[in-house]
């Protein structure tokens, strides 16, 4: 390792060239676009050269993780589209069972929470501690709200025995009059038995997709709670905002998934 210390070569594309081997030899070398060896902030992990590098890495890692998540939902979307294409009438009838009001409300709630989250990131980046706590708390509340509304919707379905499984009930598809509130809105024609049976697949996918999404929300809310706690102590407003930013990415991703779920489940099959 001695021999080649002498030879300094061309530096990498991304990093600025290291001035000389002495500078690199001592002091875990740092490649900051500004400033030579200033003392490292406490949150700079030992194996990174610089805060940029660390933030970059974390940010990129988060994006890749979101790509993974996207493919995870991709399987569900595929299944949904395949079966919608096969059993269109069943899917129409199924989506008529969903309550667009609640759905829209939920969309608005989630978009608002996304906004507050973005504001939270801004507060963190500009070192506004109280602002950050406020935004995170708002996001937290809105997230809970979303889950609450989802819960109400789920209850409706389960009361109507539209939860797939043993006591799945076809009555509201075989004679739509039997649940008037949906009927007076859409005036569905009754489905034949074989097609009515396929509504179960619609609801399986409905519960699988929204359930998977709700699961992500729950995880997110858990993390939010932890973050609020830390933010009160000013953990994220002293420059180390990576965590907040990455969580923001996660939260917005969950929002995007919902935007598509809303379109696919509630909207596109209404005629």
């Amino acid at each position: 390792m001695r021999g080649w210390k002498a030879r300094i070569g061309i530096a990498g594309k991304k990093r600025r060239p290291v001035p000389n081997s002495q500078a690199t030899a001592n002091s875990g070398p740092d490649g900051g676009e500004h400033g030579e060896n200033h003392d490292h902030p406490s949150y700079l992990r030992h194996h990174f050269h610089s805060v940029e590098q660390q933030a970059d890495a974390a940010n990129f890692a988060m994006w890749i993780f979101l790509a993974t998540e996207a493919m995870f939902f991709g399987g569900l979307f595929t299944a949904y589209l395949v079966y919608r294409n096969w059993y269109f009438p069943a899917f129409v009838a199924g989506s008529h069972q969903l309550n667009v009001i609640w759905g829209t409300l939920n969309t608005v709630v989630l978009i608002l929470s996304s906004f507050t989250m973005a504001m939270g990131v801004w507060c963190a980046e500009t070192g506004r501690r109280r602002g950050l706590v406020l935004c995170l708390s708002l996001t937290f509340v809105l997230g809970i709200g979303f889950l609450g509304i989802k819960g109400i919707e789920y209850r409706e379905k389960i009361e109507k025995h539209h939860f797939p499984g043993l006591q799945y009930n076809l009555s509201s598809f075989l004679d739509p009059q039997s649940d008037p509130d949906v009927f007076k809105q859409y005036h569905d024609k009754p489905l034949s038995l074989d097609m009515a049976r396929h509504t179960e697949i619609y609801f399986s996918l409905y519960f699988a997709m929204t359930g998977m999404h709700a699961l992500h929300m729950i995880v997110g809310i858990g993390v939010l709670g932890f973050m609020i706690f830390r933010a009160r102590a000013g953990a994220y407003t002293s420059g180390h905002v990576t965590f907040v930013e990455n969580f923001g990415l996660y939260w917005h991703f969950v929002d995007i998934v919902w935007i598509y779920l809303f379109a696919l489940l509630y909207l596109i099959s209404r005629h």
Partner: protein
Amino acid sequence: MSEPSEHAHPIVGPGVYLVILFALLVGTALTVWASFVDLGFWNPIIALAIATTKAALVLLYFMHLKYSSKLTMLAIAGCAFLFLTLISLTLAEYISRAWGNW
């Protein structure tokens, strides 16, 4: 000293966020309204188009993709491409089954 260096992109301010929020809400209203009008074949297309626009807004501004590195954009593009491959190739197989043997 190294606070500004933690985030690679310029800080996006509340102004932008407010505009985007507004746009998203309008989009939601629009798509819900559109779903009530019977456009037949076009309903799903419009719904998905609006959804995609909203998603794009969230990506670009809330998630700062607009200010991120080429690399990130590449990653997203690749993922989106594969996502569509999964869906389109599988769907193509299912649809072409109905074409019968030959």
